[in-house]
């Protein structure tokens, strides 16, 4: 199986409260925040690695994982980190965030899929900076592929994936024939969430995403990394979403204390009137 995984680097989501708005209100500034791989994309990579190996013998790869990102050169560290955890090849499309929107990225990814012909394309359900949640769905439509969004479980079958989707009020199971697009939710990295055809039913992975051992980090420096221009893959597509201003959410006036539960219930009833 060949899997294409789309990765985005984002400003450290654990410090997302430190993002600033420029004085003129026309930009979000993330200066001082470390770049991290979008958590949902990291989960997507972990799912791709599990789909392309025998879980019992993780070193035995049973397929290929190609990672792709749209970012400037310094984001190659994001790709190298993915290569270190087990991805085989990387593609960087040279672009700045300001040159991109969801529609354009979907068109560009389609060009890459047409060339790479993966069996599965895996993306995080959304990037935690823009929180747009659209590229996977758009890509599936452009390719006329079936899709399974917000995946919590994936089981490989012959020529298909059985995917448990996280939906409001439960888990919805879909069977998608390959090639297909999958976007992943956070539970995809639970110990029994993903089974390739090679991994024995009941096998338990470690919870969460895997970390790269030092030799793999060194070896990743030698793995292939291709660079493409945005014009090469985006065709004639232009931006269609324009942000005209940004603002901080209103600050909460918190900090008040109550002395006991009686006062709490009284305040909730008579002051806030929410009981």
């Amino acid at each position, binding site marked *: 199986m060949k899997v294409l995984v789309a990765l985005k680097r984002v400003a450290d*989501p654990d410090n997302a409260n430190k993002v600033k708005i420029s004085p003129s209100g026309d930009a979000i500034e993330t200066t001082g925040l470390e770049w991290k791989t979008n958590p949902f994309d990291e989960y997507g990579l972990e799912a791709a690695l599990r789909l392309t190996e025998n879980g019992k013998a993780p070193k035995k790869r049973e397929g290929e994982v190609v990672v792709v990102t749209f970012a400037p050169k310094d984001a190659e560290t994001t790709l190298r980190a993915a290569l270190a955890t087990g991805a085989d090849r990387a593609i960087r499309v040279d672009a700045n965030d300001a040159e991109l929107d969801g529609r354009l990225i979907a068109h560009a990814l389609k060009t890459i899929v047409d060339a790479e012909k993966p069996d599965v394309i895996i993306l995080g359900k959304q990037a935690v900076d823009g*929180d747009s949640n659209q590229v996977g769905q758009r890509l599936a439509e452009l390719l006329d592929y*079936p899709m399974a969004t917000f995946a919590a479980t994936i089981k490989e079958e012959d020529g298909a994936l059985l995917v448990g989707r996280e939906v*409001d*009020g439960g888990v919805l*199971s879909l069977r998608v024939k390959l090639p297909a697009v999958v976007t992943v939710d956070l539970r995809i990295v639970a110990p029994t969430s993903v089974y390739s055809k090679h991994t024995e039913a009941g096998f338990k992975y470690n919870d969460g995403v895997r970390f790269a051992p030092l030799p793999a980090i060194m070896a990743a420096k030698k793995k292939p990394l291709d660079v493409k221009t945005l014009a090469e893959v985006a065709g004639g597509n232009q931006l269609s979403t324009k942000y005209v201003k940004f603002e*901080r959410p209103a600050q909460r006036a918190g900090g008040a204390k109550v002395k006991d539960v009686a006062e709490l*219930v009284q305040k909730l009833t008579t002051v806030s009137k*929410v*009981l």
Partner: protein
Amino acid sequence: MADALVIAELAEDGKVRKSTLHAITFAQRALPTLGGGFAILVLGANAKAAAAELTGFGASKVLACEDPAFKEYTAEQFTPTVAEVGKGFGLIVAAATSFGKDLLPRVAARLDAAYASDCSAVSGEGGKLVFKRPMFAGNAFGYCQLNTPIQVATARQSEFDAAAPSGGASPVESVTKAAVGAAASRVQFVSLEAVKSERPELTEASVIVSGGRALKEKFMEVLEPLADALGAALGASRAAVDAGYAPGDFQVGQTGKIVAPTLYFAIGISGAIQHIAGMKGSKVIVAINKDPDAPIFQLADYGLVADLFTAVPALITELKKRG
């Protein structure tokens, strides 16, 4: 001048989901800028019956596309018809539920339209729609314009009241199902395992009781009676989920569920940024924690410094006194 099209969402029993009424309100707020009216599109195996539920909300018409292929929802079956009907409109909207968030970006791609997700407001500027949407897990809001002939958006339910019936009777018209692409025959609905719970869904609940790692193995034992007393949904911090004290679908936070109830109880939750990102839109926040320096207290409208194992049962007793 352009019209808006609201995509109705149906429940498993074929009835209209309330989320549809929130999407109607969103569409209504866009109308002064669009300059037209709004229609509603219902897709389902019994779409005409559902369409009849929606004739009293002031729509110019309710379009019903009834087909056995719509018995269960898949984006691959729904997209061609929604896009075909949507071609005649300037704005296509649905609620930002798992249905809307799955379907509408796919519809947008089919129409090569730009898409704004999870909008918390819509306004107009110079005759163009401006969509306000949360970014960075709610730590910033962006105002965006979509520069395509058709615009597509989903609306965050908690930010738009459910539309109230306005009287009148919108005509119901039948529309035919559009031809589907290859993708539709390569996806198969297998099952829906609904979470069996007497409690409201986290994303729809008006009261939420959330617990942190401090509850340890007593997570359910301590919090369930409080949730029962309040008719609340149960949530948890990531730390509580990671430690195995609460199931994964309880997680409230940046990578879990984003909630905005009227009343939110954070119990034994210190207030990591990851958690706060998911609940700070709540109207009233109550925090119970024995550490007076816990960051959650800076955010809480009412903080109670106490041992949760005694405070929670006392709170239940106090609530019951009210009757």
